[in-house]
């Protein structure tokens, strides 16, 4: 649930990048941080966890308008994928308003994607959230690797990934390459759109 900061007349909402380790969550956030630097209000906080990094920064999306006369401030987070970091994961997921699930297109990571999505479902339940109700967007990352002529790193087709991950969820999905930045902005925009629509709906419901 977003926080309504009455002092600053701001609505703070939280978008979390989730996914298996090394799928490119951090790269997504680093790209956003670089590209939208003017809109970033805070420093990029990076915490090194074993084998992965957890990132966090504050972000003021432009041109999104206001809700109920309040400005909107978005906090972007990544979550450490490894099992042992349960305290961090819980804190970050608690009160998340939107989720971007970053899946790895490498064929060898197929099972990792499915496991991580299941894990997300469980973790959200623990925080009293529902994967079918929370604004969720899928990103199929590392598509740029398909351009390799020799096919040394086999990647899955978008259809296969849809079938694996999005058959029941039926949420928006974007092929992307976080390294080059392709698809990163579109993923974020869609996620913010869904998140804010969801917030607005909740707000109307509350006003009735």
């Amino acid at each position, binding site marked *: 649930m977003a926080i309504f900061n009455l*002092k600053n007349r701001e609505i703070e909402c939280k978008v979390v990048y989730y996914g298996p380790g090394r799928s490119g969550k951090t790269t997504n956030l680093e790209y956003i941080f670089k590209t939208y630097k003017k809109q970033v209000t805070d420093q990029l*906080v990076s915490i090194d966890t074993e084998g992965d990094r*957890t990132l*966090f920064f504050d972000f003021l999306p432009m041109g999104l308008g206001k809700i109920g006369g309040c400005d909107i401030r978005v906090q972007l987070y990544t979550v450490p994928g490894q099992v*042992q970091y349960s*305290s961090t994961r819980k804190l970050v997921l608690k009160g998340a308003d939107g989720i971007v699930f970053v899946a790895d297109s490498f064929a060898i990571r197929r099972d990792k994607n499915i496991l991580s999505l299941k894990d997300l479902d469980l973790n959200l339940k623990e925080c009293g959230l529902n994967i079918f109700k929370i604004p969720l967007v899928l990103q199929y990352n590392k598509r740029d690797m398909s351009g390799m002529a020799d096919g040394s790193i086999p990647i899955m087709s978008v259809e296969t990934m849809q079938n694996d991950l999005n058959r029941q969820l039926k949420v928006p999905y974007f092929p992307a390459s976080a390294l080059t930045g392709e698809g990163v902005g579109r993923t974020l925009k869609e996620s913010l759109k869904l998140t804010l629509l969801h917030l607005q709906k909740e707000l109307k419901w509350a006003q009735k």
Partner: protein
Amino acid sequence: MADLSFAGNLNFLNLGELLQIFGTNGSTGILKIKSKYSEEPGRMYFVKGELVNAEAGSKEGNDAALALFGWTEGEFEFRTQEVKTKNVIRKSRMEITLDALRLLDDGRIEKLGPVTYAKTFDESSEKDSLIPVIRGPLVDYTYVVEEEEYRDGDKIVTEGKFGNWIWVVLEGKVEIVKETKQGLRKIVRLTVGSFVGTLSTTMPGQYNVRTASVVAVGSVQLGLLDSQRLYSEYMKLSPLFKEIITSLGNRMKQITGMVVDVNSKNLNNKALLKGKKILIDQGSNDNRVFTITDGEATIVRTTDNGDLPLMTLSAGDLLGRIPFVNTGHEPHSASVYVSKDFSAREIDTEIIQKEYDQLSLTFKNMLENMGDCISATTMIISEFHRLSLISK
């Protein structure tokens, strides 16, 4: 004096969540964190929502802030007031929170609570193994009549000998060990605030055989407790409350005895549970408490490695979740099976809770510590059980 603005239990809102709340609220003031495992409360200083300084024991600044994340049990109080301390912490609150939680998950921040773990060399399996280290609540010195010093390796209590004394650990650590066919088995370590000997061992007129040996690890200072005073307090208790104490003592004794049995191969679950039906299911929220009047009840813990019968209780013993003692058994972490001829009387937990509230601090501490010891010993037995299955 500043007014209290916000207070509560860390079970409900943890430190990470508090930092976020004060942050978005832009609060200025002092957050005090009280834990019964620390004499001095911890403090965090906030200016306009940002953490500027912290104190925890002898630590200050960033180190203290991180250490406080290990205080997962306790109470907090926030007072809005002017903060004059130096601005020592320059990291943002979110950075500190995320970093602290990572360190906590990595086991690099010490958790301040009753049970921690220590690596120790186990002679019987010739390997390093982890054993629980149990800390007790803050020592109530009014019951300590004499301080005794022991050196590393000194035997304080010998298994099988008679003894009525009871001590509290003032400094250092002692190890509880038990004789088994495979040699000496280390069960748990007790550190500051834990009691050596149980309440039932202090009762005069009873010949109390010590169920395990106690050995000093490094130099240890123990406080001998005033058994006269404990005894007179005990005599004033209601018959029901005396039953609770005796039954907890029995549970402790039986669970310590299991350390021997778990290694022998004759753990015959089927025979033990034959003809018995389930009374309390593991994991249920059954909050009833009973006194057994007839028949017997077997406490069973279901683990990943199958069912492990822990003990069998009979007439006079208590079953169920006693509100102020956490034994780590039924209903959350063990089931209860009862024989055909079993009958029991349900107890009103409110009455025993009221009597508990009237007890002296030392009595309360002893009951709590006993629950922690039973819980930790059960865990170590589950571990021995797992190891014995692997070796088969």
